[in-house]
């Protein structure tokens, strides 16, 4: 580790570039106050080994919203979360998405050195969970979660699904796979005499092998292949045909025919084909679940609300689950907490940040008696509110509920595989019938033999494998390039997209801003202002602090922050005020952009004009997408209309002042005109639109931020590649169809052999695996080749 003091030092804790060296401890640079604090906690407790396992292992606290976990101490919530509870011993498993390296494991497993009362903690790295044994007499659950959060490992508490243990379903799948593989191998060994044509020499031995094969194949059919039978039965009862029906019929035909062959000593049976089939099918299923697991993200919108709020009950403030709130309940909301339900403000004045709802991060002022909507985040002093509506009925949740429960657009899609399976099944049934009729007149004795052969080889194993391997591989390709999809079906829907709608805030514009100062300030005065804004957590202050280059060592005294107005302080003997025009004594003008005014010693000195920055790659992207781009929708004022027009040329509609509901309606209008709409947005304020659209894409510059209504999450810097993703999705549908064609080709050969009555176990044993392997090989190679070609220019 060399000590290169370049212009920008990397934060010792999280490795991000430091904008300034204001935070310096023990000769080490830190990018923010949070990182510095974590370092100090660790060094105080002699835990600095954390930094030796991995370079800059920490998680920046910059983007992590402040959250309080005290609500976990409420009895009902506690009981739901704890795996074990007694007076002096309790066990909890937290899901901590931030676990990412060796240092994380080390720190989290040394929690007992940091927090008295922790007995033992163990990390499951793959599951990103930490299991903590602790003494509830010494430390409460809420305190424990707060300690984790203060280190940057905030647990994601989710009461509807609780913490997520490793799914036993995936374990079971591996066991099934192991048994099928075991049986496949052993049956092939025992069939060797058969393959080599040694059957005349020793008939008893051959019979023994056959019965052994039968014994080994039984658990494969009924344990490993169980799901195909139950699924087929289910879909049969719903009078639908999915891919599992012909598979189940094929497996059953193989088993019965082989058993009859062995019992009547007329042949060795087809057990190698049967077990091989199940083995390959399960590999496909395992691959699919593996891909999904790695991409799984929690779609549960409830995890966004802080789940409990302080309610006045029995003469004291107690934490209550938000869904238990009743109208007229008196609640207390603290700084940075979200108002859980539409309520009337009791305190005299308060400021709410509605960026969750409207995308506007400027706090809105509310006075006593005013209605405050759910989803607003309180900035500043704690306030008391009287609940007006139950949480489930309030404006925001109704939007979310609408989004969460009406997944109409997902079920309307008949998946390609189901369509193919239905056609396939009918063809096979027709062929089997025709063959049966033909052989009935031609050679009645052999009719059943030929008929079962037809059903056996028609088993669409390769067909079933084509989908998981094509889409699974494509999901990986997308994921590698910063586009995370909810599941494989999304690719199919992306392929059909022919209209795109963009959101403005956070999508077309990036959080960073260009700031210009209109007026005259000396470098020294600029430095003072930097010192001032650095003390404030206001979003505008943060932007200014980042942008101003000048520094000042002068002490800041008499600092006062008046929420919603500005900051005032005395620096270097000068009385400085920063903030709104009224607060600083400037004349108010109708503004086209956000302004922060400066007054020094009562003299108006000018203002900062803060403008959001348009992502540079958007313009070329829009050009490349051409007439697919239909509109830009925004919840903001139309102050930036002309700038947006320069990016989105004429036929594109520019819509401002759109409420979340307007955005949603706009999308559904487009859909009524038979467009398949992709909505590209940023967060909760357009969650309804994201859900309503055929494909909802959330753009994020910090993948830790999760948008529940979206079908996919696109990393901000990759937005410019959106057209590549659209093309790739189209190509994967093509690859999938080619895979189907290959599978049908093999099936046609096998069927013609079977129908003419020449199918021997050997031919079946060769044909069936070859078709599966060639389909898997083709789809995997094709997907990777297409993807490499697409991303060759910009990997």
């Amino acid at each position, binding site marked *: 580790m060399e000590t290169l003091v370049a212009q920008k030092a990397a934060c010792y804790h999280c490795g991000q570039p430091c904008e300034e060296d204001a935070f310096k401890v023990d000769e080490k640079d830190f990018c923010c106050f949070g990182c510095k604090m974590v370092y100090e906690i660790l060094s105080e407790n*002699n835990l600095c080994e954390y930094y030796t396992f991995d370079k800059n292992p920490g998680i920046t606290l910059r983007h992590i919203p402040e959250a309080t976990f005290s609500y976990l101490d409420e009895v009902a919530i506690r009981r739901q979360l704890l795996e074990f509870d007694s007076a002096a011993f309790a066990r909890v498993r937290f899901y901590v998405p931030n676990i990412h390296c060796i240092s994380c494991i080390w720190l989290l497993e040394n929690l007992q050195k940091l927090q008295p009362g922790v007995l033992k903690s163990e990390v499951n790295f793959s*599951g990103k969970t930490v299991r903590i044994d602790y003494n509830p007499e010494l430390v409460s659950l809420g305190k424990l979660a707060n300690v984790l959060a203060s280190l940057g490992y905030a647990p994601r508490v989710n009461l509807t699904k609780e913490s997520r243990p490793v799914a036993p379903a995936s*374990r079971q799948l591996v*066991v099934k796979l*192991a048994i099928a593989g075991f049986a496949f191998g*052993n049956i092939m060994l025992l069939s060797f005499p058969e393959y080599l044509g040694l059957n005349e020499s020793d008939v008893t*031995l051959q019979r023994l092998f056959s019965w052994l094969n039968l014994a080994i194949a039984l658990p494969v059919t009924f344990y490993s292949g169980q799901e195909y039978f139950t699924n087929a039965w289910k879909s049969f009862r719903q009078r639908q045909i999915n891919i599992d029906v012909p598979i189940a019929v094929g497996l059953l035909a193989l088993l019965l025919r082989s058993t009859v062959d062995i019992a009547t000593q007329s042949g060795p049976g087809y057990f190698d084909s049967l077990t091989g089939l199940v083995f390959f099918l399960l590999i496909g299923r395992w691959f699919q679940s593996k891909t999904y697991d790695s991409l799984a993200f929690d779609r549960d919108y409830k995890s966004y609300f802080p789940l409990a709020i302080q309610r006045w009950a029995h003469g004291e403030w107690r934490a209550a689950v938000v869904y238990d709130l009743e109208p007229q309940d008196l609640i207390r909301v603290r700084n940075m907490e979200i108002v859980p339900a539409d309520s009337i403000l009791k305190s005299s004045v308060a400021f709410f940040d509605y960026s969750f709802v409207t995308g506007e991060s400027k706090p809105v002022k509310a006075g006593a008696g005013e209605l405050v909507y759910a989803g607003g985040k309180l900035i500043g002093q704690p306030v008391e509110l009287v609940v007006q509506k139950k949480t489930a009925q309030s404006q925001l949740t109704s939007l979310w509920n609408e989004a969460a429960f009406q997944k109409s657009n997902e079920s309307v899609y008949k998946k390609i595989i189901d369509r193919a399976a239905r056609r396939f099944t009918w063809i096979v049934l027709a062929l089997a019938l025709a063959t049966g009729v033909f052989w009935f007149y031609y050679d009645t004795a052999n009719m059943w033999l030929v008929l079962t052969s037809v059903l056996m080889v028609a088993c669409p194993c390769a067909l079933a494998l084509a989908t998981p391997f094509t889409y699974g591989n494509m999901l990986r390709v997308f994921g590698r390039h910063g586009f995370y999809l909810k599941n494989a079906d999304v690719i199919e829907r992306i392929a059909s997209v022919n209209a795109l709608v963009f959101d403005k805030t956070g999508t077309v514009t990036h959080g960073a801003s260009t700031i210009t100062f209109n007026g005259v300030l000396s470098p020294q005065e600029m430095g003072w202002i930097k010192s001032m804004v650095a003390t404030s957590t206001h979003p505008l202050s943060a932007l200014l602090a980042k942008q101003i280059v000048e520094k000042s060592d002068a002490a800041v005294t008499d600092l006062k922050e008046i929420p919603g107005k500005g900051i005032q302080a005395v620096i270097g003997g000068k009385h400085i005020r920063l903030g709104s025009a009224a607060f600083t004594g400037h004349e108010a003008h109708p503004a086209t952009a956000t302004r922060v005014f400066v007054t020094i010693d009562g003299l108006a000195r000018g203002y900062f004009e803060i403008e959001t920055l348009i992502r540079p790659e958007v313009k070329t992207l829009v050009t490349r997408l051409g007439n697919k781009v239909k509109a830009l929708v925004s919840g903001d004022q139309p102050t930036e209309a002309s700038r947006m027009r320069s990016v989105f040329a004429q036929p594109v509609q520019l819509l401002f002042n759109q409420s979340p509901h307007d955005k949603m309606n706009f999308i559904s209008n487009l859909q009524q005109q038979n467009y398949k709409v992709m909505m590209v947005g940023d967060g909760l304020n357009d969650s309804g639109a994201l859900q309503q659209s055929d494909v909802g894409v959330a753009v994020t510059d910090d993948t830790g931020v999760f948008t529940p209504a979206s079908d996919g999450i696109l990393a901000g810097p990759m937005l410019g590649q959106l057209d590549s993703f659209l093309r790739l999705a189209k190509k994967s549908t093509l690859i999938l169809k080619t895979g189907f064609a290959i599978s049908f080709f093999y099936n046609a050969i096998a069927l013609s052999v079977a129908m003419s009555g020449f199918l021997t176990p050997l031919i079946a044993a060769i044909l069936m695996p070859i078709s599966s392997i060639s389909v898997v090989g083709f789809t995997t190679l094709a997907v990777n080749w297409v993807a490499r070609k697409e991303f060759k220019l910009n990997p």
Partner: protein
Amino acid sequence: MLIIVLLISISLTIAIIFLAAFVWSMRSGQFDDTYGPSVRMLFDDKKKKHTPTPKDA
């Protein structure tokens, strides 16, 4: 003839024992986290010493 039957039964028995061992290890959760244990064994037990000197920044 008899020797073949014997050999086959022995080989199958052994194979089934290994299969059972695998199924057991899977069920008991030994494959749930394949990364954690490999690094956990490398962590030293810390001695009680107050010298917080991580390497340079």
